[in-house]
């Protein structure tokens, strides 16, 4: 019997469960390696060569090089791990989170200052606004 996953109808959200964690194991562990300053420097000096040291899928490597965080998450990445890439690039959590929403950095910041994204219309896929 498959496990119950009541969170699949939450719009724009990927829950990092055991299945995602398994898919993203090497992608996330690559991110962990960026906690060391010398690894950050080596990654910046040659991203492709650094990524090739990890048994990640080609799709995962492409998503990292494109800094496509939504794609990274779909391929098993978790935001707390992916944040190490952002830190390496000198990006804040707000810049990283905003980059996944289709808003510009300024639009995202303004949305947060005016109270954040409304819950109305964002509970279920298809919920009326």
């Amino acid at each position, binding site marked *: 019997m498959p496990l119950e996953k*009541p*969170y699949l109808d*939450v*719009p*724009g*959200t*990927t*829950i*990092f*469960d*055991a299945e995602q*964690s398994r898919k993203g*194991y090497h992608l*996330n*562990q690559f*991110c*962990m390696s*960026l*906690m*060391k*300053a010398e690894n*950050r420097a080596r990654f910046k000096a040659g991203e492709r060569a650094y990524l090739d040291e990890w048994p990640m899928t080609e799709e995962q490597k492409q998503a990292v090089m494109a800094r496509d*965080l*939504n794609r990274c*998450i779909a391929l098993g990445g*978790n*935001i*707390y*791990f992916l*944040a*190490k890439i*952002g*830190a*390496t690039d000198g990006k*804040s*959590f*707000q810049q*990283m*989170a*905003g980059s*996944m*929403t*289709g808003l510009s950095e300024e639009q*995202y910041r303004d*949305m*947060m*200052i005016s*109270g*954040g*994204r*409304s*819950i109305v219309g*964002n*509970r*279920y896929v298809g919920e009326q606004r």
Partner: protein
Amino acid sequence: MAKITASVYTSHVPAIGAALDLGKSQEPYWQKVFAGYEFGKRWLREDPPDVIFLVYNDHANAFSLEMIPTFAIGTAAAFPIADEGWGPRPVPAVVGHPELAAHIAQSVIQDDFDLTIVNKMAVDHGLTVPLSLMCGQVDAWPCPVIPFAVNVVQYPVPSGRRCLALGRALRKAVGSYDEPLKVQVWGTGGMSHQLQGPRAGLINREFDNAFLDRLIADPEGQAQVPHIDYVREAGSEGIELVMWLIARGAMSDRPPKVLHRFYHVPASNTAVGHLILENPA
């Protein structure tokens, strides 16, 4: 005997730490956040506890995907500050309380909570930002701290029910420690926020304030709320709020005194909530 005198609850947003560390705390954006902690700073300075038991979550710093403990108690004498990728925060190292931590581990495990015992662990913003908010920029934290890390990164996280019951086991453990220590239990994380995907930036004031009301008045009822309600209503990272129930469970069964309550949106991506509850004498 040791006793739990009060509990403190707060969000632990990394940008709050960065604002302090980079000297931005006087900017109007951040003043609105820090103003909510002026009372707590004064209160803690005037009557500091002997030990803080600090419930938080690690954000892929001490624990990678190599090991994912659901409940981990720090029993070391000291805990270094993690380099989360931006360099370690310039804050004092955290001094532990190995004797009380070992006592709690032994008691709580015999009450059927299978804790992971950690003797070597770096601590990240989840632990240091609450200390900074409540103590300001200091040369040393006011007392030893026992870090208690809860997995809220990989789903499923522990249920609210389990967290409340763990808090009760913690209360019993502290109450059976021979030294007359004053202990505070802090619950951190939340409130509503989502850091990932097209729904990032979600904030739900109604949910957050209902959570605060119920945490104070009806923790048993709040503990029955399932994971999916947090995920749907408070965002994928809002689920951190279950950790507050550990601190609440550690409080007396008699109604607490609400010393302080604060709520503000935003700090970076997150709604900031803060409570101080005191046990009846």
